């Protein structure tokens, strides 16, 4: 598909907006529809789009395998880490109100980091699964 000028051009226009939209959905999830899952999936979709148009090798340069694999695990660790932080600061596991001087701000901070963790894991997993499926076909024949 890299020779098809129209597709490449459309992809070049669209992919930055898709990435921006993923970030918007992630951070605006408090005020409108959205949140970690949707943002993670949209981010993975942007990279998959890039891989479809420009080829897997170029996509691997943008999102190398070790990065994607570690993203899968780091997200879960961030989430669990927020819980442990709640423990260390005096509350129960996954208590958010101890995370800041003010319970409501603590909730905000906790929700922010938790959503970041979720989005990281979801985008990492979706991308890794895509890489595995795409890899299988190329090496088979």
């Amino acid at each position, binding site marked *: 598909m890299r020779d098809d000028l129209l597709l490449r051009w459309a992809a070049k226009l669209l992919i930055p907006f898709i990435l921006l939209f993923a970030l918007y959905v992630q951070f605006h999830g*408090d005020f409108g529809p959205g949140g970690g899952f949707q943002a993670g*999936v949209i981010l993975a979709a942007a990279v998959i789009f890039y891989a479809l148009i420009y080829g897997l090798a170029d996509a691997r340069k943008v999102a190398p395998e070790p990065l994607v694999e570690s993203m899968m695990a780091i997200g879960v660790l961030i989430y669990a880490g927020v819980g442990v932080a709640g423990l260390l600061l005096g509350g129960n596991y*996954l208590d958010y109100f101890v995370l800041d001087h003010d319970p409501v701000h603590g909730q905000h901070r906790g*929700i922010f980091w938790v959503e970041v963790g979720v989005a990281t894991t*979801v985008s990492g*997993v979706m991308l*890794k*699964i895509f890489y*595995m499926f795409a890899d299988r076909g190329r090496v088979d024949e």
Partner: protein
Amino acid sequence: MVVTVWVLGRSRNLFVVVVLSGVYSFFMATVLVAMDAVDVAMTEASVGAGISTVLFLGALYLCKSREAHAMRRPWLPLGMSLAVGATLVYGTLGLPEFSDAQAPIHQHVVPRYLNEEKDEVGVPNVVTAVLASYRGYDTLGETTVVFTAGVGVVTLLRRRRRARAS
């Protein structure tokens, strides 16, 4: 949606089946928006119509087959499905009507979420607040499930380069 599912069931070309499942997911997302479930609709549209279709197409490319003949004389499964469906319909007759404000689902804990949420969490999107704060454990489990699925797929589809060299 009903028509989509019907055509999907009858079709034997797997590519058509996969595309129709994406169409069905989009219809479902539209219905969900009509039900005021905007978060869920966004997730269903991106995950169901997006990622699912991509995965199906990937698997289809690797499997490359067309469905063989459908089961002849599917009377027993059809009868069973109709019987189970009739029983379920009979069961749902006892459920609250559509948009019933006195239904049990709207009592108990949900008024507390809607009313106290502004003071306790302060986040306008109640769904995000419930998902990340009130029901944070469930979301932790869900994230772990997603991680486990990724690990599972990696384990299943990992290439063993050593075996091929021998």
